[in-house]
């Protein structure tokens, strides 16, 4: 049996088994990390692209760094237009190059001021990126608390977060993700210097308090929706450090008011009646169940490092996605049938081999997509259709070469034809492959979905043509290939 000596036979069988193993989880109900996910454009759902404010973060970082230099090295500095300017006439010995470097600073070459520093691009980007990762976790926990389980959330670029929620949307999501949730407690202060007036936008109540907060929401450990005389309120508790601060503040200021401020606007300004040592408190003031619950969620997930802006929002209804899939699948099947019929009529037996090659190519493609846990989108489906096209093209190139060799009586027309055609196929497919890889690296959204299936598709097509198609060509006598004319 000559066929058993073909190494390609064994590799083909191996490919088949491996593909089967990897595709199988897609048809099982339990969740698995190696499954093809469907993009929102297919299954319907919501996506939000959130952007953290880079400028605000830069300012925060400048203030923090300047304070750190002051506290650690007793060197005072000013912040001016994105740079830290170290004041003259001080002993700067402590500020060695290594210290500066560790702070991520570098001398601002463009500044006309002396001792002016900016963050090096590299260190700022790193810091920005870390901040975003942190914000990803905060946003995740906020949406989790609302009870959305299948969400996908990832960092995009340096300061963006892509949040995707399949299925129906809880209307509170938008509200909950876009709040910075900076909660601060300020004691009343009637002096103009160092004070600030906060206003409650709904009731118009205002109070003048000291500008620097006495306690911040960073100390909050837990928060929940509770009821006080049937009114929904937000109950919160501080951690140990926060409890101590809160106890100190309340015991020293019995009789005066303090303001609870959320994202710059006053929520309520109660009078301190007695010292509060338990480390817990309540915020009341015209909440509904929903708003109180939302506030509790954002308080316990922590505040976001900067303001967040929804720069892209997409809601795809289930009908559009379903219709898309149904039509897309029907279109692909009809296209596949049309192509295979054409190939069989035109190339006879060889055309039949093309059909087998296409089917193997598709199963290898889906196996790799499952293994890599790829998200399949509609542009991705178009990428797959293109892959089938390239696979057919490879077959045509090979058959035409063999036919030509046969006509010119070239020795060993099958091998010679296959090999010379395969060089051409490699050249043309590799160019497309490299282009697709760069497209994937730089692209966004639909471009990525398209390029990932193209990348995987080209690789599968190259493999199956080299192994499975060649196997069939090898084991079939040229007389039966249907190529001589």
């Amino acid at each position, binding site marked *: 049996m000559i066929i058993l000596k073909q190494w390609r036979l064994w590799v083909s069988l191996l490919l088949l088994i491996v593909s089967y193993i990897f595709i199988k989880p897609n048809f099982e109900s339990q969740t698995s990390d190696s499954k093809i996910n469907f993009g929102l454009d297919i299954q319907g759902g919501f996506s939000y*692209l959130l*952007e953290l404010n880079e400028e605000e973060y830069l300012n925060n970082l400048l203030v923090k760094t300047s304070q750190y230099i002051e506290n650690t090295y007793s060197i005072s500095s000013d912040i001016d237009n994105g740079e830290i300017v170290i004041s003259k006439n001080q002993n700067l010995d402590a500020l060695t190059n290594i210290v500066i470097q560790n702070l991520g600073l570098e001398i601002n070459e463009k500044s006309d001021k002396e001792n002016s520093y900016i963050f090096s691009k590299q260190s700022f980007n790193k810091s920005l990126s870390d901040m975003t990762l942190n914000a990803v976790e905060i946003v995740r926990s906020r949406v989790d608390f609302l009870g959305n389980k299948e969400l996908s959330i990832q960092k995009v670029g340096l300061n963006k977060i892509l949040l995707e929620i399949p299925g129906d949307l809880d209307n509170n999501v*938008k509200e909950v993700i*876009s709040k910075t949730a900076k909660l601060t407690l300020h004691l009343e202060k009637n002096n103009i210097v160092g004070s600030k007036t906060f206003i409650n936008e709904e009731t118009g109540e205002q109070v003048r308090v000291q500008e620097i907060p006495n306690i911040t929401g960073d100390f909050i450990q837990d928060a929940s929706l509770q009821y006080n005389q049937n009114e929904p309120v937000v109950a919160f508790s501080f951690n140990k450090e926060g409890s101590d601060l809160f106890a100190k503040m309340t015991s020293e200021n019995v009789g005066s008011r303090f303001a609870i401020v959320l994202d710059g606007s006053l929520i309520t300004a109660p009078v301190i009646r007695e010292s509060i040592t338990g480390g817990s408190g309540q915020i009341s003031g015209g909440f509904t169940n929903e708003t109180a619950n939302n506030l509790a969620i954002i308080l316990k997930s922590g505040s976001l490092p900067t303001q967040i*802006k*929804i*720069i*892209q*929002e*997409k*809601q*795809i*209804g289930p*009908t*559009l996605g379903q219709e*898309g899939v149904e*039509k*897309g699948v029907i*279109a*692909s099947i009809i*296209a596949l049938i049309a192509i295979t019929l*054409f*190939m069989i009529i*035109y190339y006879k037996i060889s055309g039949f081999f093309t059909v087998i090659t296409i089917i193997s190519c598709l199963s290898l493609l889906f196996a790799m997509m499952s293994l890599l846990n790829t998200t399949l989108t509609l542009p991705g489906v*178009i990428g797959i*259709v*293109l892959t*089938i*096209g*390239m696979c*057919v*093209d490879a077959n*045509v*190139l090979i058959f*035409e070469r063999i036919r*030509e060799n046969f006509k010119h009586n070239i020795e060993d027309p099958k091998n010679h034809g296959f090999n*010379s055609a395969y*060089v*051409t196929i490699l*050249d*043309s*497919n590799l*160019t*497309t492959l*490299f*282009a*697709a*890889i*760069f*497209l994937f*690296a*730089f*692209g*966004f*959204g*639909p*471009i990525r979905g*398209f*390029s990932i299936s*193209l990348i995987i598709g080209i690789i599968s097509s190259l493999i199956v043509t080299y192994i499975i198609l060649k196997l069939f060509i090898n084991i079939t006598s040229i007389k039966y290939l249907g190529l001589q004319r």
Partner: protein
Amino acid sequence: MINFYSFKNKSYLVSLTLIILTIIIIFFKGLNLGIDFKGGLNFEVKSNLTTNQLNEYFNFIESDREVLIKREVGSDVFSIRIESGDNNPVFIEEIKNIIDQNPDIEILLSEYIEPTFSEELIKNSIYALASSLLVIAVYVWIRFDWQFAASGIFALLHDVFVAIGFMSLFNIEFNLTMIAALLLIAGYSINDTIVLFDRLRSLTSNEENKDNFETNVNNSIKLNLRRTILTSFTTILALLCLVFLAPVNLTEMPIVFIFGVLIGTFSSLFLVLGIVGDLNYEAVLKARDS
């Protein structure tokens, strides 16, 4: 036998005309930029109302935001594009709430993009396009001679550019999906071109008949003609299925691609090898001999 090489001057003329036409069309008609590149709101709705009725209905939107309503070809689906303005996140919710109360209109898709982000997307797409074109050029240059790289890249840019003209002419929306379509065309074009290059290279390195460049060019095309036609045919066959069956908001992509396949077939049959010849590739071959 057809002497493809002798057509090259006429082909240049055709190609030049196409390029000039494209420039004129784009200059006068502009590109129909989608919200991906312009920012703003977009709704896809299903409705049994007419375009006029919908236009009237959406009159409630203040005049400072431009509203564009277009029926998707052969369906009861409309695309409604609303210009970006202040506080889009709140605005989109208001519009959604208003539409939800109308039983005649069903929202299939709603989205908005901030103009700041769409600027980033433009930049991003240009990087993606430019870098992949550069990679193609470098690869062809490494594998072949520079004349091939130059000619291949010219054909590819030519095909993509004329396809953009086609989109402008038929007012097809230019969005991120279309960038993918343009890259498909680029990929198809270079694919076709490389197959011919490979043939020409192997023919010119053949001792017996390497001297007659014109015959070699014609042979390269002739020997690949059947493949070129078969591949274009099967690709168009597959794409036609997509045109008639793709979801309404995706039908335009295969149409643009079909045009790209046609223009790509033209450029690979009539343009690329002519350009290689005119870049004095013969001299390179002769120099290699001596």
